[in-house]
């Protein structure tokens, strides 16, 4: 085992336009690594686990930054920093759940360079996987967390498939709650993928966490105005208030009319490999009064179907409580 913090050699490219970036991605294929804020990427390089031949710094490409209003919502460049998102009056006023989620990521310094695109594309934080051992996700044939002795407090309640790691992102659940669309480009053109479909679990591909394939660049995130100005709730529960990953987080948007919750989307992070949309909760609450009975029913159903590991049973009451708060306090 060698020491961990000197990056292996790579070639660095700083394309100034998208076309150049796509050429490089095509040229290097799986050996290319598009770099956004670098806050997860550089760690992988320092660990010497991910070893791209060519690192393609996207920061110099015009048009991948900034927050713009569109005809039916907003479009956020994938390289927009988390600080910009947390402080944007537009996002705070209309899409507060995202602003709040962004403000809870890591630390001020990380938010100053970490991007929205990078935050949602970051790899899982399973401590076994991050230590560089040969688990399923790393191409091996075992999982060290999902064993009788494995230390799996941070691991998943749902949709395990060989791997039990969870999504670590705070902004991803907010984007799913807002029904965002991911704009992905490659040499063949552009495609849009709903946030809900953007994240993939180990059943689909155990070595990736998003649908992005070599050659793809996530260029922007579109948020429809559907939930603009809606009631919202975001809460992250972590061991530390700075620089920590959620044990569980919740992002919710609710459309309330009088006493009635007309519509809602509720999403939890930290409970499965992808942000988990709580359809059952939504079905219970939609069209109901915001009363004790609805809140209790919704909370009680939040974690239905969970399969606990040895150390993560607490995530069931935590999910239930966060959903309760999301509906009660939004």
């Amino acid at each position, binding site marked *: 085992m060698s020491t*961990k913090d000197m990056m292996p050699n790579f070639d660095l490219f700083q394309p100034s336009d998208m076309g150049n970036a796509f050429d490089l991605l095509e040229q290097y294929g799986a050996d290319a690594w598009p770099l956004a804020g670098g806050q997860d990427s550089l760690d992988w390089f320092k660990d010497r686990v991910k070893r791209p031949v060519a690192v393609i710094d996207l920061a110099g490409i015009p048009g991948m930054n900034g927050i713009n209003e569109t005809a039916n919502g907003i479009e956020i460049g994938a390289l927009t920093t988390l600080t910009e998102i947390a402080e944007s009056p537009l996002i705070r006023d209309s899409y507060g759940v995202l602003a709040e989620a962004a403000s809870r990521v890591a630390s001020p310094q990380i938010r100053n360079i970490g991007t929205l695109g990078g935050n949602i594309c970051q790899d899982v934080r399973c401590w076994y996987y991050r230590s560089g051992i040969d688990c399923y996700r790393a191409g091996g044939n075992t999982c060290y967390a999902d064993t009788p002795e494995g230390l799996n407090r941070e691991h998943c309640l749902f949709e395990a498939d060989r791997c039990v790691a969870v999504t670590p992102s705070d902004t991803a659940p907010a984007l799913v709650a807002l029904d965002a669309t991911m704009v992905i480009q490659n040499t063949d053109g552009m495609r849009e993928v709903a946030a809900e479909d953007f994240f993939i679990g180990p059943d689909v591909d155990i070595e990736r966490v998003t649908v992005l394939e070599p050659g793809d660049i996530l260029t922007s995130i579109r948020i429809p105005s559907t939930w603009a100005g809606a009631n919202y709730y975001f809460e992250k529960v972590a061991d530390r208030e700075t620089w920590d990953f959620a044990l569980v987080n919740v992002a919710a948007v609710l459309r309330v009319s009088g006493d009635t919750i007309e519509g809602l989307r509720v999403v939890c992070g930290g409970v499965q490999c992808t942000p988990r949309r709580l359809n059952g909760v939504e079905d219970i609450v939609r069209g109901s009064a915001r009363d004790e009975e609805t809140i209790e029913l919704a909370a009680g159903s939040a974690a239905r179907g969970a399969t606990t590991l040895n150390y993560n049973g607490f995530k069931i009451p935590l999910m239930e409580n966060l959903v309760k708060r999301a509906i009660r306090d939004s």
Partner: protein
Amino acid sequence: MADNPTYKLIGKNFTPPDIEAKVTGASTYSEDFRAEGMAYVKMLLSPMPKCRVRNIDASEALALEGVYGIMTADDVPVFPNPGEQILTNEPNFVGEPILAIAAVDESTAANALELVNVEYEELPFVLDPLESLYPGGPDAYSGGNLVSSLRIEEEDELGDIGVVSHKWTARDFAAVDEGQLPMGQATMDWQYGDLDAAFNDAALVLDETFVTACNSHHSMEPRSAFSYWQNGKCYVHGSTQSQMFVVPGLANLIGITPDELVYISEFCGGGFGSKGGAYAVMALPAHFSRLISRPCMLRITRAEEYYLGSARASFQGRAKLAFNDQGKMTGADIYIVQQGGAKNPFGDFGAAGTMVSLVYTPESMRFRAIPIGTNTTPCGPQRGPGQNQMSAALEPLLDKAANALGIDQLEIRRINASNHETLTGGENRQKVSSSYMLDAIDMAAERFDWSNKFARNGERNGSKVIGVGIGQGYHSAGIAGFDGLMRILPDGKLHIHTGVGNLGTYSYASTSRVAAEVLDMDWDNCVIERGDTSKHLPWTIGQFGSLTTYTMSRANYAAAMDMKQKLQEIAAMDLGGNAEDYDLANETVFNINDPTQSITYAQAAQRALELGGKYSGEDPNGTNPLTQASVAGLAGSGLIGVARDTTPLNEHISAMVATFVMIELDTETGNYEILEFVSSGDCGTVNHPLGLVGQLRGGACMGIGMARSERQIYDPQNGLPGSVGLYQAKPPSYLDVPAFMDVSAVDQPDPTNPMGMKGIGEPPVGAAVGAVLAAVSNALGGYYFNRNPVTSDMILNAASGREQSNSPLQILTQ
């Protein structure tokens, strides 16, 4: 804290001479040094918790351009098992250094390391001392699990006789209930008072099994070191809390004599016990530099700091406590099994017993303990080693007793508080020199407004509930017998030489002010010489153990009195009369009967040079050989004051802190916020008010970390440590500690110190962890975790009636 009217300098704030460099970035830590032609050293670490290196093939690595050389265990001295090794072929923890490569830069060294092929033979390992104690259980060390010096007298120099394999019987394990600590043969076993009577007559008996966390020191500066050889001497820039205390050990690690070593440690980016003396890895660049004839820099990474930088030992403990109906602890029967770590364990276990005897003053007590090796990071001392684990374990239990007896939680602490007559436990019971703990408790209680705050305990607001808690911390706070050295130059300036190190407490400076106080020097005319052994420093205690303030104020006082005597003698020689006719004021020596008869210090220094002998440094005055060498180096430069602190000390110096907190705990998230924090300490006379409150608050932050987030975890399957990054090991941030902490001190002098001072660095940690854990238990209506840290998952499990994930004796776990 009010100004102390007795003194001109003591009790006053001042600007320490090194602080400006810290705010401008000019401060130089060991990794800030550069030299032409220097090489960068990187290490290959053991990937397994216990293994044997069968073969090393470095041919490809050595062929890499820019690589200067390799060092393996064959190239460095071997130290007695289970001591730390510089490099080893028999690693017994993940991250223990096996070999190192030096290259033109760090990238090249890291690239080269990947080309080294090492064949390992995997060996059985153990993480849990109880597993090792079970008949047939694995041993962590080569040849045993217990340091034999703890059990037998003789120790072989290099062999494996330094350790023995110590096992309990299957009957020992069967004799207890599931989840209770078994109690086989211990290595420490002392008792006082009539324990049986205490338990027979008790109004309440608690019998609790508990565990405490292993947690890292998280010093912000990893233990990097830089070294080169020049003119027959080895220069080492190291990261240590201490200065002179490091020298003998480091010289030994390098294989040279102390006079062949120049040790430079002007700044240290935090140690908290983990850098108190010399440690093995800091000698690696010196060895490498000798091998390749280049200056060598070893930058330690954060992950390496976690792997090999040591950690506080876990305890698996059992406390049987007897109380009478007034809440007096009449009996304490304590058993501690200490996680020994992979190397020679620090004596946390012994301190745990002393802590119980002094903080709770049980009328009778039995204390048993045993440290057992584990294939984990070495367990070295961490700020209040042993004492603070006991605060974490016992403070909530004191509330459990108070509740059961219907006694106020403040009152049970008051009734058990130590006083000036309290004796330590142990083989040789010692009386404390002073204890104002009751005053500290009362002071904090008043500032906290205890009765009104406690009335709010359990107050609910939706999912949030108020919890109030008290914690107490203790540490020994001073010893005697070290040297002071100072000189007055012909320009009249007082140069105070200090070898204590620069941990960040500024006590190197505040204890130097004792000399200035005695000699009535203007502080602006004083120069502190420190940070580099070539500056001729005296043999002094290191900066650890809450010892510096007490110990070095005594030593500097002794040397200042020697200086005073010499000044008086010189004045008498020149102006007539006897030395006793003269006194000191305003940097002059004057005749008490005729103050116009005087000479300045500058004149006296000039006269000292003419007089020679003891005045100019030709008599080291019975000091340590290292001090003697320094005195010789200074001889002829001015008037020398030098002395060993020989005033007898037969009492135990004790410092204590009482802390009160109010938290708001959210039963829906398991999180809590510390709303109010009040601490008061007994540290004798306050020397440096800002430095003191910095220690009280800083220690509290560490205690809060112990209470809420910090722990080392190890995977039981492969022995891999899981807390090797800050986000995994979780020291508290700005947002995890209270936004404001009220801290104060009793400020009553200790009779055994010339200025009344005692140390205070460590007790605030224990007081804080105890108070926070007590508050959590109180908020949950008397739910006792018997474990630290208490994390949100544990609180959620408690609040939702779920079983906890851990078994009661499980350590190093989540």
